[in-house]
C-alpha cells in the first residue's frame, strides 16, 4: 500500500432519517467542518440497511461505508437499531474474515442533536480510510476492465 497520499476516499453513508440524518443536517447548518467525501443515503431506520447494501457499495467502488442510527433506546421504531446492531455484529466479523480491512465499514449512533459528533465520526472515518488507500478488493468495474485489458494483441 503505497500511494495513499492525496487519496480522497469515496464513502457511502447510510443515515437513519430520525437521528443521524438530522445530526448531519445540524452539522451542516451549524457550519461544522467535516470532510466532503461522504455520499449520504437517507434510510428510514438503521435496520433498513442490509449487509448486502454494504457489499454492493464496495462492489461499485466505495472505499468505505458508514452506517449511522439512533442511540440505543432512542429508536423511532423501538427496536430497529437493536436489530441493526445484532445484524452487523456478525457481519463485521465476516467482512474482516474475508480480508476487508476493519476500518472500511463503521457503525455509529448519532442523535439529531449531535452535529458535532457526526462531524467527528466522519472526520475520523475518512482519516482512517485515507491511510488505507483505495479499496480494490471487491470492485467489479476493475475486474471487467482487467478482462478487457487481458485481450491485448501481442
Amino acid at each position, binding site marked *: 500500500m503505497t500511494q495513499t497520499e492525496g487519496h480522497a476516499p469515496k464513502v457511502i453513508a447510510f443515515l437513519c432519517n430520525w437521528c443521524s440524518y438530522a445530526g448531519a443536517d445540524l452539522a451542516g447548518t451549524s457550519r461544522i467542518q467535516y470532510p466532503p467525501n461522504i455520499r449520504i443515503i437517507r434510510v428510514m431506520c438503521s435496520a433498513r440497511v442490509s449487509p448486502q447494501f454494504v*457489499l*454492493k457499495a464496495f*462492489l461499485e467502488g466505495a472505499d468505505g461505508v458508514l452506517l449511522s442510527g439512533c442511540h440505543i433506546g432512542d429508536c423511532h421504531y423501538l427496536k430497529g437499531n437493536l*436489530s441493526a446492531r*445484532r445484524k452487523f455484529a456478525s457481519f463485521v466479523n465476516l467482512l474482516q*474474515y474475508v480480508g*476487508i480491512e476493519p476500518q472500511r465499514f463503521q457503525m455509529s*449512533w448519532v442523535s439529531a442533536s449531535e452535529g458535532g459528533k457526526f462531524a467527528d*465520526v466522519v472526520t475520523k472515518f475518512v482519516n482512517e480510510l485515507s491511510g488505507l488507500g483505495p479499496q480494490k*478488493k471487491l470492485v467489479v468495474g476493475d475486474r471487467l476492465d482487467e478482462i478487457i485489458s487481458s485481450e491485448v494483441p501481442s
Partner: protein
Amino acid sequence: MTTTDPNELRNAIRALLESKKIRTFIGWEQGSNAFRSRPLFLRSPDEVGNEIFSPACTPCLVRMIIEDLRYPLDKPDDKRPLGIALRGCDDKGVIELIKDRRIKREEVMIVGVDCPGTVDWTKAKKLIKDRKISTDDIVNGRLIWKDRGIAIATPSGEISLEREKILMSKCLDCEGHTPRIYDVLIGKEDTKRIPAEPPKEVRELEARSPDEKYEFWDDVFSRCIRCYACRNICTYCHCEECAVDPTTLAIAADSIAADKANRPEWVGRDSTDSSNGFYLITRAYHGTGRCISCEECDRACPMRLPLRLLNRKVRKDAKELFDYDAGKSVEDKPLLSETCDNDPGDFIW
C-alpha cells in the same frame, strides 16, 4: 458399526407406506458406484427394496423437503406428511425449517437412523488411486460399516478403508449419530452429544492480516463458477427468491411492468472474483444462526472450494457473540429475528 438393522428399516418404511400415513418416503438408493448414493422416492409398499443405508449415504435428504415446497413431489392436494430418513446431523436442518416456518413438525414423518459416518467422494477418489482398488470393486462393491471403520464388500472379500482418509470432515467431528427429533428410531439412541469445535483452519485464518486473508479468499472467489450448487443444496437457502436472481416475486402472471422493471440487480452474472465474493459472502452471512454445518455446500461445489470455512465461521460467531446454536431446538427463536439489550456493540462509535 451402526445399530440400524436394514431389515427393521425396510419394515418400518413399508409399514408407513402401507398405513398410507405418508405420501412419499425419501431415502437413499445406491448411486453410480460403491461410494455414491442418491435420493430415492418411495410411494408404495411394493417399491420398497431399493433403498439402502450405508456409508455411501452421503447426501443430506433435507434438501428434498425444500425442493418439494417449490416443485411438489406429489399431487399438491395430497396433504399427508413426507416420510424421511434422518441422521444425527440432518435433523438440525429440519429443526431450522420448522423455526423458519417453512414446514410444520407434523408435515414430516421422521425415521431416525444411526449413522456412524459417510464417505466423501473426493477423498474416496484419492484413496482408490493410492490403494489401487480395482474398477470392478469400485463399480460393483458395496460399502459397509465395519467395527469403527468402513469396508468395501466385494464377492472376493472385504477391503477395509481408513476412516480418517475417507469420511466427510463433518463426520470426523460428529456431534451425535442419531437425530434429536424423530417419530421412529431404527437403532439405538446416541445419547452422547459432543458439540463440534470450530475447525483449526478457521482460527488460523482469523489470525492472518487482512491482505493475507484476502489473498486466500480471492483465490477461492476467483475459482467459483456461480453454478449456485452451494445455494441449491443448502438447508437454509430455502428462500422463494434469491438476492442473486431476484425475479420469482416480481415476475408472475399478474405482476405489473414497473415491478418487473425495477426489481433489484444486486450482482451481475459475471463470475469475476468481486461478483463471486459478493455472492459467497452474502450467502454465508445469511447462514448466521441458521447454518447447521452440514457441509453440503462444500461437498456439492464442483470446484471443491472450501466453503465450510465460511460457514463454520458464521456458526462460530453465532456461538461466540450470541451463545446461539442453529438446529438445537424447535423452541428457539431465529437468531436475527430477536434482539437483546446486552448484544455486543463495542464495534459501534
